[in-house]
Each structure stands twice: as structure tokens, then as C-alpha cells.
């Protein structure tokens, strides 16, 4: 099986704290933090595009991998907030990396886009060698202050992951992807307009489906949830991370979290978290790595990797 070789990320400079959101939406700043775990989020400046952020994350990831862009055999680009219906940002990213014939495929998914990208990269790396997975979102342009439940959650950012056929710091062991379209109307972004979310339905399904998916994959490989070194999750809500941890009966600390700094950056959040985990204390953590995400669709999934000693 292929390897996770490196992660990277890029965040816009502008910080928007809960006091600013409170002034805009009428919500209480302390209550925003209590209900979401979010203290601030980043917003992209006017004129910055999804491809701009994606390029910055891809460059960080490539620098961390020790590879050049010319060694990338395939690009997979996840976003739910691109500026155009088509083409998506994948082809622009490839061009800006200097690649004019390398296939670059868009994954028009939201929160589960990066996990799906890594899963697809795992299966395509034997053919393409090094697969660059990028997820980039500018959610701040897709929310409305008239819908405070949604507006308080989201931020902008990008992440990237290099999946390599040859080598890396962790070997991908297995993954499982799921879709249940019966709740597609519970979380969606219309072609024009702002994000629509039924938070009750999303959390109710995520709270049950994610622990079940993680438990099933770990059980398949004879691994106890308590034996996992780190859980890298889509950063949707701090309370959801705690609920998943509680259901799996593992300490909250095992779930890496940076949601307090960036909010929910949709598909990018998993890779931003992974990049910061790897940069901060990855060498101090032994044991398997679990990546998991849940989002619009509903799509959800989990990926298991083992670190190379």
C-alpha cells in the first residue's frame, strides 16, 4: 500500500474572533465558544481565490516532502467553494505548479473531500507515483450573517497531502468510504446563495456514523480504539470531536484539534489539522493514525495508517 509522505497547509492572515462575529450576528461571543469550541477563524482577503490558497498549501506540502512539483504524477483537488462551477481549481493549480500535462482532477465535495482524495490517491498511486491531494476553501463568502448558526462556524484555509507509492512516514493500511444521500438536503450549497445547514440532523448522523465507521475499520484490523496514536478528524465542532472520543472510549486528547484557531474550514480542515499535528509533535506519538471525516452528502469515511518506525 502507498504512503503518507507529507502534509502542508496555508491560512489567510485575517483573524475574525468571536467578538466580531457577535457584533455581526447578535450571538453571544462566549456562547459561540461554548457551543463550538471556536475562538477565531481566518478569512481570505478580497481577490484571493481557492486556487491561491491551494497553491500555498501545495507548495508547503511539496517542501515538506522533499519532492519537486515535476515529480507529481497526479493532482486531486477538493473544494466545495470554488469560484466557478467548472473548471474547478485543479487545472489552474497544476498550471501554476508548472505542470502542463499532468492530470489534475477536481473533487467537488465539501467536508469529506480531502479524506476521499487521500483514499483515491491510495488506489491511484500505483499508476501515478506521487499523488498531490489538495483541499482549499473560502467559506467566508458562502455564509450569511442572517443565518448565525452557520456563520459562526466557518473559516477559510487550505491543506495538502502527498501520497507516495515509494515512501513516507506512514503506510496506508486501509480505508472505508460511505454515502447516504437521503440527507443530501440537510447540508448543501446551492449554485447561487449561501450555505444551508440543518445542524441537528448533521450532528445526529455524524455522532452515530463516525464512531461506527471508525470502530468497524479498526475492528477489521484487530486494533482497539484505545491503541490508536492520534485521531485526525475533520474539524467541524469541538463538541462533536469530544462526542466521538467519548463513544469510542478514548481520551479527548487523542483527537488532535485546532478548531479553536480556524473554525470549520470544510474539506481543508482535516489536512490543516494533519499538517499542524505533523509539525508539532508527530514524533512523540506512537501507534496507528486514524483520519476521519463526515459532511455534506452525507458522505463520511475513515482511513487507517501505520507509522514507519
Amino acid at each position, binding site marked *: 500500500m502507498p504512503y503518507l509522505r507529507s502534509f502542508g497547509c496555508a491560512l489567510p492572515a485575517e483573524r475574525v474572533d468571536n467578538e466580531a462575529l457577535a457584533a455581526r450576528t447578535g450571538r453571544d461571543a462566549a456562547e459561540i465558544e461554548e457551543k463550538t469550541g471556536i475562538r477565531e477563524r481566518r478569512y481570505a482577503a478580497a481577490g484571493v481565490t481557492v486556487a491561491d490558497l491551494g497553491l500555498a498549501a501545495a507548495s508547503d506540502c511539496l517542501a515538506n516532502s522533499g519532492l519537486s512539483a515535476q515529480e507529481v504524477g497526479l493532482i486531486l483537488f477538493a473544494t466545495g467553494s470554488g469560484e466557478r462551477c467548472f473548471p474547478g481549481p485543479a487545472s489552474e493549480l497544476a498550471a501554476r505548479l508548472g505542470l502542463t500535462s499532468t492530470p489534475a482532477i477536481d473533487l467537488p465535495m465539501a467536508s469529506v473531500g480531502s479524506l476521499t482524495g487521500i483514499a483515491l490517491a491510495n488506489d491511484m498511486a500505483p499508476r501515478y507515483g506521487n499523488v498531490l491531494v489538495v483541499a482549499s476553501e473560502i467559506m467566508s463568502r458562502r455564509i450569511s450573517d442572517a443565518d448565525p448558526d452557520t456563520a459562526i462556524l466557518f473559516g477559510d484555509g487550505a491543506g495538502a497531502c502527498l501520497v507516495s507509492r515509494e515512501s513516507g512516514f506512514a503506510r496506508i493500511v486501509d480505508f472505508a468510504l460511505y454515502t447516504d444521500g437521503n440527507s443530501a438536503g440537510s447540508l448543501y450549497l446551492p449554485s447561487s446563495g449561501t450555505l444551508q445547514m440543518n445542524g*441537528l440532523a448533521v*450532528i*445526529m*448522523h455524524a*455522532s452515530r456514523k463516525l464512531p461506527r465507521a471508525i470502530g468497524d475499520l479498526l475492528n477489521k484490523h484487530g486494533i482497539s480504539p484505545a491503541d490508536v496514536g492520534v485521531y485526525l478528524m475533520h474539524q467541524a465542532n469541538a463538541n*462533536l470531536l469530544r462526542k466521538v472520543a467519548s463513544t469510542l472510549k478514548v481520551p479527548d486528547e487523542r483527537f488532535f484539534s485546532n478548531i479553536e484557531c480556524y473554525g470549520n474550514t470544510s474539506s481543508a480542515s482535516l489536512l490543516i489539522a494533519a499538517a499542524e499535528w505533523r509539525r508539532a509533535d508527530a514524533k512523540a506519538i506512537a501507534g496507528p493514525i486514524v483520519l476521519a471525516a463526515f459532511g455534506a452528502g452525507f458522505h463520511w469515511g475513515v482511513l487507517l495508517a501505520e507509522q514507519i518506525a
Partner: protein
Amino acid sequence: MSKQAGILKVIHAVADLATDPAPDESLFGSGALDSFTLPDLVTGLEQEFRITIPDTDLVPERFDSVAKIEAYLDKRAG
């Protein structure tokens, strides 16, 4: 224990309520339940009534009041 008493037992276990909610009172509207206590309510109902609630039945409106929960449980039993 009646079905309604069982439902109230589960609601009190997951929500911080001083009194019983009225049968038709919205549990979401009153703040008794939110997005993070709702999953606990569903799990509590499964344990109290020894049933498995399938994902296809995970529609928040089904669990918005004691009366709606009772109607759902009756429908399942029927």
C-alpha cells in the same frame, strides 16, 4: 412503567430540566435538547425500549416532543 414515563426518564437523563415537558412542547424550541443532546436521547431511547433506531429514522423532527417520540415508538411497535 408507561411508554410516556420511559420517554420522560430518558429526556431527564440527557437534558437539564426541573420539570416534565408538556407532551406537545417542542424540546428543541424550549432548549431542552440541542444538537449534542439529541444523539444521547436517541441512544437513551434505544436502551430504554430495547430497540435499534435505524439511521433512516434519524430525522430530528421525530424527536421534537414527548408526543412525537411516543408516536414514533408506537409506529415502530405497530
